[in-house]
């Protein structure tokens, strides 16, 4: 197990360095520069542009900028946002809880609905229910998030008025952010109705963000279950006279979950990508929108720092998934 753990941690170092290089190069490969974009139609003289670029440290050779950047990372300094003039890490830490809260709710929703739906479809293979569930999953998987989000807002917030349109909590509530997680902070605030308001605001964005992972998890669960249900040991269990719920729940599901856990882990990247659009539609102050805005204004430090932090989170989640996988399947950790 120790060798397995060390092996997994060892892989993180080259991956991390690779990410720094990709994040650093990606934003600089894009045409346009921050000084030109800041000036807009007004324009900027070549002399003034050189001054601004020098102030930002972008006049140095690329290799030097890269070394400064990597050295900064080791000191916990990801640079200062060109737009807000605030440290990138502070901005990330302010915004990340909002994205994490949304992503967590979305993945819980996707798992809680996706796995039972997949199991049900597998057990009822070929039936009307199977086709309906898999058809719905296909539609969900193909759904453009932007359109889907707006549709839900118009129906549930506009016409039915069941949910608020956007934001994280009603503007009536105003309390200090302790954890950055609105569900927790609203409870800590002690303000009457704040928690309910936070929950109401989470419903639609969670549904929208959960749609694609839910579809993927349901499909993956179904195919994994079908494979397992055809195994000899399942047939033996049935022959022993075990009831269908025990056969499916105890014998089949445990083995079928192995690929499903991997799929759930991989959905973290999908969730963060989906968060960009979901956050824009629902005015959700998270890191997705922050990164997109920063790319469009060529805020180099935010983009390279933000990408690095997100990549770090995805790597950590994948590591946890690998470890979980090892726990569920002993063959892996001895491999």
């Amino acid at each position, binding site marked *: 197990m120790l060798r397995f753990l060390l092996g997994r941690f060892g892989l993180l170092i080259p991956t991390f360095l690779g990410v720094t290089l990709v994040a650093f190069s990606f934003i600089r490969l894009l045409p*346009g520069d921050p000084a*030109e974009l800041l000036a807009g139609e*007004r324009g900027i003289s070549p002399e003034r542009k050189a001054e601004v670029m020098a102030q930002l440290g972008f006049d140095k050779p690329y290799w030097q900028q890269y070394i400064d950047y990597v050295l900064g990372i080791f000191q916990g300094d990801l640079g200062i946002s060109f737009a807000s003039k605030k440290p990138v890490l*502070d901005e990330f830490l302010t915004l990340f809880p909002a994205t994490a809260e949304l992503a967590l709710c979305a993945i819980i929703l996707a798992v809680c609905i996706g796995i039972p739906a997949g199991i049900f479809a597998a057990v009822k293979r070929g039936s009307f229910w199977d086709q309906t569930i898999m058809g719905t999953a296909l539609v969900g998987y193909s759904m453009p998030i932007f359109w889907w989000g707006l549709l839900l807002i118009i129906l549930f917030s*506009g016409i039915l008025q069941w949910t608020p349109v956007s934001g994280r909590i009603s503007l009536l509530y105003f309390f200090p952010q302790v954890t950055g997680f609105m569900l927790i902070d609203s409870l800590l605030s002690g303000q009457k109705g704040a928690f309910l308001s936070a929950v109401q605001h989470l419903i639609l964005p969670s549904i929208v963000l959960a749609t694609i992972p839910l579809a993927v998890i349901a499909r993956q669960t179904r195919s994994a279950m079908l494979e397992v249900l055809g195994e000899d040991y399942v047939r033996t269990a049935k022959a022993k006279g075990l009831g269908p719920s025990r056969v499916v729940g105890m014998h089949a599901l445990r083995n079928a979950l192995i690929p499903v856990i991997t799929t759930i882990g991989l959905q973290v990247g999908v969730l963060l990508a989906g968060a960009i659009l979901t956050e*824009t539609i629902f005015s959700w102050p998270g890191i997705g929108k922050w990164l997109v805005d920063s790319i469009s204004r060529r805020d180099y430090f935010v983009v390279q720092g933000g990408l690095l932090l997100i990549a770090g989170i995805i790597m950590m989640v994948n590591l946890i998934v690998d470890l979980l996988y090892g726990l569920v399947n002993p063959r892996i950790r001895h491999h």
Partner: protein
Amino acid sequence: MNFQKTLKATLLGASLAVIAATGASAKTLVYCSEGSPEGFDTALYTAGTTFDASSKPLYNRLVEFKLGTTEVVPGLAESWEVSEDGLEFTFNLRKGVKFHATSFFTPTRDFNADDVVFSFERQLNSEHPWHEYTPGTSWEYFNAMSMPDLIKEIVKVDDYTVKFVLNRPEAPMIANLAMDFASVLSAEYAAQLDSAGTKEQLNQQPVGTGPFSFVGYQKDAVIRYAAHADYWDGKEALDNLIFAITPDAAVRLQKLKAGECHVMPYPSPADLDDIRADSNLTLMEQQGLNVGYLAYNTQVAPFDKKEVRKALNHAINKQAILDAVFQGSGSAAKNPLPPTMWSYNDAIQDDEYNPELAKEMLAAAGVENLSMKVWAMPVQRPYNPNARRMAEVIQADFAEVGVDVEIVSYEWGEYLSRSKDVERDGAVLLGWTGDNGDPDNFLAVLLGCDSVGGSNRAQWCNEEFNSLVQKAKTVSDKAERTKLYEEAQVVFKEEAPWATIAHSVVFMPMSSKVTGYVMDPLGGHSFKGVDIAE
């Protein structure tokens, strides 16, 4: 982390302030703004979204634009005098003006000349301790308006008199001082931050003299303000002002309809009929102080001949563009100035749409089988909501007169940079929104000889036009300036360095409960004087 501690302390203090203000009768207006401010020290930025959240509610300037107009009226200066030679501007400051008292700052004195000197010196003087107070500080608007070349010195004559000494006469100087970058900050607050070693807070926890004081900002979500009880122009009817940051236009409209906000900017043109039909909403509209144009490169053949440029102008069907691109939210442009700008020459006749005439003129100029590029901007702007579509309409129009058009585009920063090249291949779609309501801000910036290779995308340097515009800069008499600018527009029309395309109409939907909102021709959003019915 230090920053987080400060934020928490601020929010805690701020929440108490709001609770105090949100009594039973407190009036709160929610504005669904389209984006997040980059910061709150206005002079560091150039974006309208940042100005709406900073300079408009929080600060004042020496002079202000009268609400709804581009007329300059007294602000923190009660009056001013200009010397005979036009080189000295002396401002007599208003007495008894209070800065905001907040949870993070309690002023011990009223506004005075030190605040004015501080606010400008930090931008002007590279040796000033606040010139580079946060990493990457750049005073871009101040620089773009050529202030460092223009201002020789700023002198505190006494506590309530400040003198700006210029290097050359500049008639638009007063209008420049009404712009957002000229907002006046508290020198006392800056000194407090300096001694605490937290200079960067000047951009994060602002203090001004404006109609609203800063309460708190949750990044990318909500900005809260409270009415400034001691505001020199009288306390606002609203007790609280909230900006709910809502980037998507369709979502902003849903929030407005659901009563989650009271005012929203930038509706989608497709939603205008829906808004008009809703009895709970009011739709205000105003001609924007902008112009969208197609700039030929007048230094490259055959566009160096005015006959060719004029012929192409006759080939453009502006009505088709207004229908296809503006969907009713624009008007045809005949001058480089918008109609709401003083000195707009309405006597000028536009080049009528006449493809036959265009063909004849091209033939007379000896131009056959002309191929050209038309550059389409990759971004939306009020003066051009869909440049690709506009370029396609122009492509079809030019094809009708035998001119083959290739549409090209680049990433926005690259587009701005490449389009400045004097040897650029092709005509560029671009536009301009006025900064200060002065004609010089259009004519000299976009068409003056000094701007060739820069913001003069036509690369057009006409001696007659240029001398008229330069002369108008040095004259302080408005009637005389008007005459000079009217003449300059005649020269422009004859020479046709651009095809003037359109001026957009700006729409502002709001709840019918909102009263007193006045649209700003300069494109800002101010809630001074606004009230809301219970």
